[in-house]
């Protein structure tokens, strides 16, 4: 490592392979690789504590068992050919993934307090890669929740489509849904910056998102103004896709293609916004 006379960096970049200009393909590959590294390490941090699995099963279990059974019995909600319990199962799946994802953002606040966020910000890595990595790992977390809900639903006699294609589809949709809401949660964390404010807002957000969607009742029975909100809610599209994939004989109201497009589009948009806001949490 020698220094050349005009003050060029001594060996710093020379030894490492950045001197050549990056082609867009290589840059994308590098971006993806970084996101995956983060996703992998975040996933390792997940504690697979048996008690946690149990507690995470309680809420969906209550919804399916109590609410589901009651309303199936009452036949109060018109769900066409489907039994109400079957109708709501994908909704409950989406709901439980939503609940885990929406509190994901608190990890950013914790990381900010530890100084980890600052450490990332002084590197040349684009913020969006960090955010994407976190979204991916939230997807993994969402999947473990999906397994729990599937098990519950099957136990309650919901008729599930077990074909590999359908299962793969559900995996993809659940991952996307988790990505959407965890990134949304990250944005909130970057804006509110403290734990207390975040917890307050998190609670306030989940209910409207859940109730202003087709998770537990079809959109058709909503009043006009609520219908509009539900159509703008990404959860609606997630549930719609899950319903089509999870239940044999159920069809998608908006088309699977549209559902996926909406989810991908919203994810991409949120990741861009979160990438912009990420440095704010550090101030």
């Amino acid at each position, binding site marked *: *490592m020698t220094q050349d006379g*005009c*003050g*060029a*960096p*001594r*060996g*710093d*970049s020379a*030894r*490492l*392979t*950045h001197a050549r200009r990056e082609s867009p393909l290589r840059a994308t590959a*590098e971006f993806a*690789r*970084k996101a995956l*590294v*983060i996703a992998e*390490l975040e996933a*390792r*941090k997940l504690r697979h504590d048996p008690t946690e699995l149990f507690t995470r099963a309680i809420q969906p279990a209550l919804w399916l068992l109590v609410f589901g059974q009651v309303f199936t019995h009452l036949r109060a909600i018109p769900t066409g050919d489907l039994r109400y319990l079957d109708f709501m199962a994908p909704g409950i799946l989406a709901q439980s993934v939503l609940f885990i994802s929406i509190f994901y953002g608190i990890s950013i606040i914790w*990381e900010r*307090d*530890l*100084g*980890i966020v*600052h*450490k*990332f*910000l*002084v*590197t*040349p*890595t684009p913020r969006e890669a960090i955010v994407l990595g976190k979204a991916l790992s939230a997807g993994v977390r969402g999947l473990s929740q999906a397994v729990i809900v599937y098990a519950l639903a099957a136990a309650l006699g919901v008729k599930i489509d077990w074909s590999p294609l359908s299962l793969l589809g559900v995996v993809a949709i659940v991952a996307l849904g988790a990505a959407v809401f965890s990134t949304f949660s990250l944005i909130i964390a970057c804006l509110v910056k*403290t734990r207390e404010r975040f917890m307050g807002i998190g609670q306030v957000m989940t209910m409207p998102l859940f109730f202003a969607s087709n998770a537990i009742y079809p959109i058709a029975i909503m009043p006009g103004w609520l219908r509009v909100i539900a159509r703008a809610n990404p959860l609606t599209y997630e549930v719609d896709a899950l319903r089509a994939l999870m239940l044999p004989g159920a069809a998608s109201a908006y088309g699977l293609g549209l559902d996926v497009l909406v989810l991908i589009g919203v994810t991409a948009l949120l990741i861009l916004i979160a990438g912009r806001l990420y*440095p704010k949490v*550090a*101030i």
Partner: protein
Amino acid sequence: MTTTIQIEELVKVYRGGIRAVDGVSFAVEEEEIFGFLGPNGAGKSTTIKCVIGLLRPTSGRILIRGTDVRENPKLVKRMMGYASQETAIDDRLTGWQNLFLQGRFFHLSRKEIAERGEEVLRLCGLWERRNDSAGTYSGGMLKRLDITAALIHHPSVLFLDEPTLGLDVQTRKVIWEYIERLRTEQKMTIFLTTHYMEEADALCDRLAIIDRGRIRAIDRPGALKAQIGGDIITARLGAPAERLGALVTAITALPETVSVNPMEGDLHRIVARQRGDQLIPEVFALAAAHDVAVESIRLHRPSLDDVYLHFTGREIRDEQGSREEIGKTRMRQRRLRR
């Protein structure tokens, strides 16, 4: 020959008009350890954050090895390593994983990380513990890992913000030795901030006294102390104001006295030209003549405490800070005092 770090008229004004950094200029030479000494809120952290790019300066120039940060941020970022006040290590990952993540963030390939990672882990003595969870590391180990992670991409300039904050005395000495080794063995130029006098004394080749966003003095610690004068006498004098005033005037008039400054309580600080030990009997004599009681008296060579007081008129004190800061301090102490 360009200096390694060149800062010209750096200004950072926060929303609300707070001038955290108010026209700071300094230069750091190759392989020098340069420090900012000042209390919380003086502008030390803000300066470092502006230099490494965490904050956007309001105005001023930042040149690293002759390259302006604003013209080529990517190139400059690769030359710099940074360790913040907080120990930015994820407890839930192993030491190696933390390092690996850092390396990836700097675009290093797996092979590069493997080689460099081993090199730096052996350097800081954590190689054997690399696969243990960082949650099991002691405070000193966490700090060493944190500083080491900043080296993963071969920077030649290292920025350390309060490198031994929250650590116990022995561990601090270990960290100082490590920093010194980084300078000599790894040929690094190091810029650090601190509010610990002993740290500035032990480590810095040169230091800048910073207070309320401005630099008050820059020089070698020895030279700064020499500027103050000779010995310092600190005396507690008890008497009503008029008699005290007359006594102070009399002491100031003595040939050996450089200055007399009243401080908190009844303390007075008398700076001697050279021989404080010869000045003391004269002070006693004068006190007796003015009917003032000398309740206690102390003599010492000027330290950085005195330097700081001289240039800023205040002592460095650990100010309480906001509730959020107190919480963070406690959290830090809990982590580091394991």
